[in-house]
């Protein structure tokens, strides 16, 4: 087995807080995980979970209080590591006096490409992110979605093997999200490793080979999205329509929710057939019956609820 794309060992970050900066607040607590080459890896957690801190540590924007990390076998302290990676920060902002073309050219210069190759790369990557027509527009005139796309272009303009994206879908409209998703899938098809943080769980479920869930700076679990949440069916979802002028059976009156002309009801698996029988008796039209499985979102919310309910020892969070 080759070198993992990303190896993180016991990475910890404490920030000094308070006027005298004597108190410490732990943002990331002993994070250990490994991401293999070619994986699309989702880094999930609510705001303040430590996702951005982890990415900043990997980029050497902040320095660890403890622990180490390597990308493709190179320590994160080694500047040569940066030749093999691309990074999109959260809510990226760029030099607004530059055009998109000038910005990409500026970043490409750091990799020592000659002028002709830089021009060719910049044009290719502008096209790739759908900005071929906006290349000569100053970035100050760009919308948020366009800035996000420029951000992705600058992260991949040098064909890195490992790409780190911090909340790449945040603030984008559905079309923008779809485009970013397609770019990530495209990178994955090319065998690149994509490590991205998100709190949009459906995106992670759709794109990731594996996900890690972070909460309060601590790793809660790592695995395939299907593995991390139980595949057990916990109920059945039934959609039905009533004949005009009739109402749902009294047994379902409290639990059925009306959505337009349709009704939706969740029932335990064992009660499915009796419920269907009742619906048939009152001549309801069954539209769909589907099993209910916990989603990543349910898992996530359960973790957050558990964390809130757990008694926190005095001083925790300010170690």
């Amino acid at each position, binding site marked *: 087995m080759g070198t993992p794309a990303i190896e993180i060992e016991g990475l910890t970050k404490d920030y000094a807080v308070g006027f005298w900066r004597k108190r410490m607040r732990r943002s990331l607590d002993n994070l250990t995980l490994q991401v293999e080459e070619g994986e699309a890896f989702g880094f999930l957690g609510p705001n303040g979970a430590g996702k951005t801190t982890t990415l900043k540590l990997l980029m050497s924007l902040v320095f660890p209080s403890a622990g180490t990390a390597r990308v493709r076998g190179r320590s994160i302290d080694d500047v040569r590591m940066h030749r093999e990676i691309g990074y999109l920060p959260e809510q990226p902002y760029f030099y607004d006096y*530059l055009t998109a073309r000038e910005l990409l050219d500026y970043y490409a210069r750091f990799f020592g490409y000659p002028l002709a190759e830089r021009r060719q790369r910049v044009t290719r990557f502008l096209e790739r992110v759908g900005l071929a027509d906006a290349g000569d527009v100053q970035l100050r005139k760009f919308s948020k979605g366009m800035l996000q796309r420029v951000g992705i272009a600058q992260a991949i303009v040098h064909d890195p093997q490992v790409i780190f994206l911090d909340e790449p879908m945040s603030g984008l409209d559905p079309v923008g999200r779809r485009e970013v998703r397609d770019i990530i899938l495209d990178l994955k098809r090319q065998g690149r490793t994509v490590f991205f943080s998100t709190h949009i769980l459906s995106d992670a479920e759709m794109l990731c080979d594996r996900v890690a869930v972070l909460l309060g700076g601590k790793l809660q679990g790592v695995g395939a999205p299907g593995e991390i949440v139980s595949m057990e069916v916990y109920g059945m979802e039934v959609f039905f329509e009533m004949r005009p002028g009739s109402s749902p059976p009294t047994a379902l009156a409290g639990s059925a929710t009306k959505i337009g002309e349709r009704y939706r009801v969740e029932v335990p698996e064992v009660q499915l057939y009796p419920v269907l029988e009742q619906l048939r008796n009152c001549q309801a039209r069954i539209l769909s019956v589907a099993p209910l499985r916990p989603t990543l979102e349910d898992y996530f919310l359960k973790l957050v609820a558990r964390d809130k309910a757990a008694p926190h020892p005095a001083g925790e969070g300010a170690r």
Partner: protein
Amino acid sequence: MSVIPAVVAINTFREAVRDRVLYNLIFFALMMIGASILVGEISIGISRLVIINLGLSAISIFGLVMAIFIGVGLVSKEIEKRTLYTLLSKPVRRWEFLVGKFGGLLLTLTVNTILMTLGLAAALYYVSRNFLRADASVLVAVYFILLELALVTALALFFSCFSSPMLSTLFTLGVYVSGIFSKDIRDIGMLTRNPAMQAAAQVLYYVLPNFHNFNTITAAAHGESIPLSLIWQNTAYAALYVMLVLIAASAVFSGRDLK
């Protein structure tokens, strides 16, 4: 030799050139030179002296304002707007970024100073229709102003590596003013009988940049020649001081968390 500082420097220069504040400063500097012509017209017999004095002072003051106000924002603006995050994810070391930023602003200041000097030369030609051999001192004075600006830029950059733009401005101004009077600080220290005060004044004299030696505006206005030894001395002093300040700035900035 890394080309990265040069890449950063060119971009910093481009930013300054596209920034409208810069054009305003040039405009005001040219206004000052225009005013010097007017003053020169009403100063019978000493118009050249007045024009050189006012022109060089304007070049120095506008350069200083730019060096301090742009200098203190060089790093903080990149952190605040998070443009530094993307930049440092490339194979760019922090010291290379700092040296590039310094180089970019120095290039901007040089171009501005050259433009303002051309304005001054035009004003001089306007009043006397010729240039004198003694006017070479004006060019030396301009060169010294540039050395002074390099020092101030390095100091502003250094302070902005660990403090807010407001504090960095105050610190830079403070050091600049103290640097002008560094010789007086030492002399005052020597006048006291307290050995601790004397030692402190001596240390301050050596630590603070000595800006006094860079001011040859009056000599240039009077057409006095400036000794070659002073040119060498000031060049070497500024180069060494700038290097030390940039090393200190790199040391501070390389260990800083960019939150």
